């Protein structure tokens, strides 16, 4: 099979809080025969405070990235632009939809691109790695590549807000299951929990729940997630958003103090989990960057452990 190479948009978190995500993403894609090539000269996706100041300018930032991707890959086929950070993913996707619509905004954006000698022809499609893993690489290929099935590991997938909202391109916005299917493919056991797409509070943390804008709200939201995951018997929580991961992982001791309940939930990225099952070296997956990571003792197949999602 010919290896597909995807254009990769790292965004600002890829080298920072999302470093482990980036490392594991590259490693897993490579192992599965898919390449990632960083988009040259990419710029900010505009997901930050831009949209509340000037939505059009925010679109223009993303539009440039989309047009660059088209410019880089010769036509006529579609160009998949893979964005791992869900903030980037949503911002780019939103700009893509704005460009595709027959609206004055679209015309303005195209004019803006023309001013820098770029063009959006509709070939660029923003994709998330989960979408690629599920719908391009496919569960079969992942299952075949598993060398170390994570049998008995109970995994709560946490989707966060932006992967499936406002655009549910490859999964249900209220009851997403795409990560659960990946979890199943690597031999682990998905934990069904009702909070998998509930807000983690990351958006109001702005520097952490202690010094952020609304520390109390953030702490409550994050705590509810961790508590419920642990109540449903999850051994680990995996996510796809660098901000969620940071938020859930980084302040567990403070939450424990605030709510008087001990917390020690391993948090990681779905790509790290997959990478482990594929037998990739832990260091290559950035496991050493995680604060709480550990996998439980294997539970022999057939035995049930932990509390069930539904009685």
């Amino acid at each position: 099979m010919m290896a597909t190479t995807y254009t990769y948009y790292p965004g600002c978190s890829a080298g920072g809080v999302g470093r482990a995500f980036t490392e594991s993403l590259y490693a897993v894609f490579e192992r599965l025969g898919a390449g990632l090539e960083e988009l040259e000269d990419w710029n900010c996706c505009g997901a930050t405070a831009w949209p509340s100041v000037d939505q059009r300018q925010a679109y223009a930032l993303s539009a440039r990235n989309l047009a660059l991707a088209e410019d880089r890959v010769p036509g006529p086929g579609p160009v998949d632009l893979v964005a791992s950070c869900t903030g980037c993913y949503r911002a780019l996707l939103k700009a893509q939809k704005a460009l595709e619509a027959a609206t004055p905004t679209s015309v303005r954006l195209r004019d803006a691109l023309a001013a820098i000698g770029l063009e959006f022809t509709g070939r660029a499609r923003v994709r998330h790695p989960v979408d690629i893993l599920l719908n391009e690489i496919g569960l079969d290929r992942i299952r075949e590549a598993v060398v170390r099935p994570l049998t008995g590991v109970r995994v709560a997938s946490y989707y966060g807000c932006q992967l499936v909202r406002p655009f549910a391109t490859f999964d249900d916005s209220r009851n997403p299951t795409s990560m659960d299917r990946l979890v199943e493919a690597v031999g682990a056991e998905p934990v069904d929990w009702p909070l998998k797409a509930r807000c983690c509070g990351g958006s109001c943390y702005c520097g952490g729940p202690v010094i952020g804008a609304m520390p109390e709200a953030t702490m409550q939201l994050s705590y509810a997630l961790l508590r419920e995951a642990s109540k449903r018997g999850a051994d680990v929580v995996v996510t796809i958003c660098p901000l969620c991961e940071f938020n859930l992982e980084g302040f567990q001791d403070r939450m424990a103090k605030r709510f008087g309940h001990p917390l020690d939930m391993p948090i990681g990225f779905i790509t790290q989990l997959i990478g482990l099952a594929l037998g990739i070296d832990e260091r290559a997956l950035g496991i050493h960057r995680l604060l709480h990571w550990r996998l439980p003792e294997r539970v022999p197949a057939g035995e049930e452990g932990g509390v069930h999602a539904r009685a």
Partner: protein
Amino acid sequence: MLEPESTRPPAPISSNGGPKIGVYVCHCGLNIAGKVDVKAVVEFAASLPHVTVARDYKFMCSDPGQELIQQDLRDGLVNRVVVASCSPLMHETTFRRATAAGGESPSHFQMASIREHVSWVTADGDEATEKAKALVAGAVRRVALHEVLEPRQSPVRPDVMVVGGGIAGIHAALTLADAGKHVYLVERETTIGGHMAKFDKTFPTLDCAACILTPKMSAVRAHPNITLWTFSDVVSVEGFAGDFRVRVRHRPRYVREDLCTGCLACIDACVHKHGKFDDEWNEGLSKRKPIYIPFPQATPPVVVVDRDACIWFKTGKCPRTCVDACERDAFDFEQTETYDEVEVGAIVLATGYRTFEASKMPEYGYGLYPNVYTSLEVERLLNAAGPTNGEIVLRDGSRPRTVGIIHCVGSRDAKHNPWCSKVCCMYSLKLAHMVKERTGAEVYNFYIDMRTPGKGYEEFYDRILKEGVHMVRGRVAGVTDEAASPEEEGHLVIRAEDTLIGSVRRIPVDMVILAVGIEPQPDAQEVRRLFNISCGSEGFFTERHPKLAPVSTFTDGIFLAGACQGPKDIPDSVAQAGAAAAEALAMIDRGHVTLEASTAFIDEAACSGCKTCVGLCPFGAITFDDERRKASVNEVVCKGCGICVGACPSGAAQQHLFTDAQILSEIEGVLEYV
């Protein structure tokens, strides 16, 4: 050989002595004049060939506006009329009548739509004015070539078909039958009654649904003027207003309707000792046997055999105790589909609705949590003839102590159905009342807006409030079994923003009722194709005009009643059914319909007999005379599409009011001047 050309197009200058065209530009208040420079359009029109009069007026459709046209016609200033105003679909008939009233042929009229097509859709005033001029020029150029057409009529058959036997169809059928017309009432289920027959009580009076519906159902069955066909559906419709030929398929019940008395002895005798199959009538909340009757008052009271469940059909091995139990020898396992074809003058469509599929909103947990119910399921629980004999109990048999009713499920939702389903607020209040009355539970209603417009409706809301039902104003975010506190353990938790107190609330309940909205029937698109009417992309049938022709359709002779046209409660459905019946009666009692004016015709001398047109006509309106080698159009059957005209390779076929010459002139007109 060299005689003059055999065919001439209709003389452009008719008997009335050469075209003198009057152009009337409507302001439509500010609807047109606010954007289009009406004076400039008038000046422009005055410069066009044959235009003798160009005027503008505030409202051309008003009496004084029409009088302007009529006066100019009477004064001999004009003999052809162009009105530049709204869409021809809106007022073409009005102005044709005005033209006729002025003593001119109504076909000497053409409309230019400078409102829907110009002023309402164009941002820039100058551009709008230019576009309006172009459309006026097109109309002027074409009307100069319009021919005189005499309106043609066709008789109307007195019989009527009503499709759908819910409350709307029942009421329409009874009204028509009482007026002495013969009615064929076609229902695809095994009984008439529709959704209403499933309800226990009706809002706001809380009268028993069965008490008011079943007498009407019996009246249908007993009425000498009604032929009731249940378990039947319409398979084809041909013809036109006043003369439809409808083919109806009757599905086999395997029990003869003329013999079965509804004694139900066969059901008791069935080899299945207990129900085993989901009872559709009870929304799957109970089980039935392979031989069953939906409910005791089903009309007709005839049992039906479920072929897919019956052991005899599945294995061919069954003692058939049912047959032995039947004293009337009504069983007929050899029954097959049969067909009837009837000729009717008018058709009333009352095909009803379905409810929103609650599992499409997984956040509300339907199908995930057993104690989340749809409102229709709760209607069945409340119904004394339902699966629990009217008891409100949870799946485990216990009584709920707190119940949450979520309004607008699937309605007013950009992700699902954008419309308000109109009945949910009221039925949710009714359910709140009844649940509270029967169980004493605390009831919470979660609503976005409380919509109670209707006689006695607001008063009903007031009454429910006083009964102590809790009202939480806010859209429910989700239903979850995640317990955030010890009080929530073991309950379902409804999370909603309470916009009246400005905070998010979590309310633990035992039972959730989803007030599912009203949707078009899943096969609405097929049905409308069958009857050649239109519907919105969502599937509700489109009325001819939302205000002025609410029960008519774009196809003459086909009328709408009930929720197939849009969400409606029972009073509205019945009122509309009466209106549809009245419209049908008006058409029948007038005795004739005016036929399509823009029919095709073939110049016999010009026809080479190539037959290109013959096979193209979807309505079989073109016949070919093998002897004379000429095709001709039956103008009564012709519906005026012009397919044959577009295809006729030698120009022998033309279409009244849409001749090649007229359309080519309109093309020139819209391009030539502006």
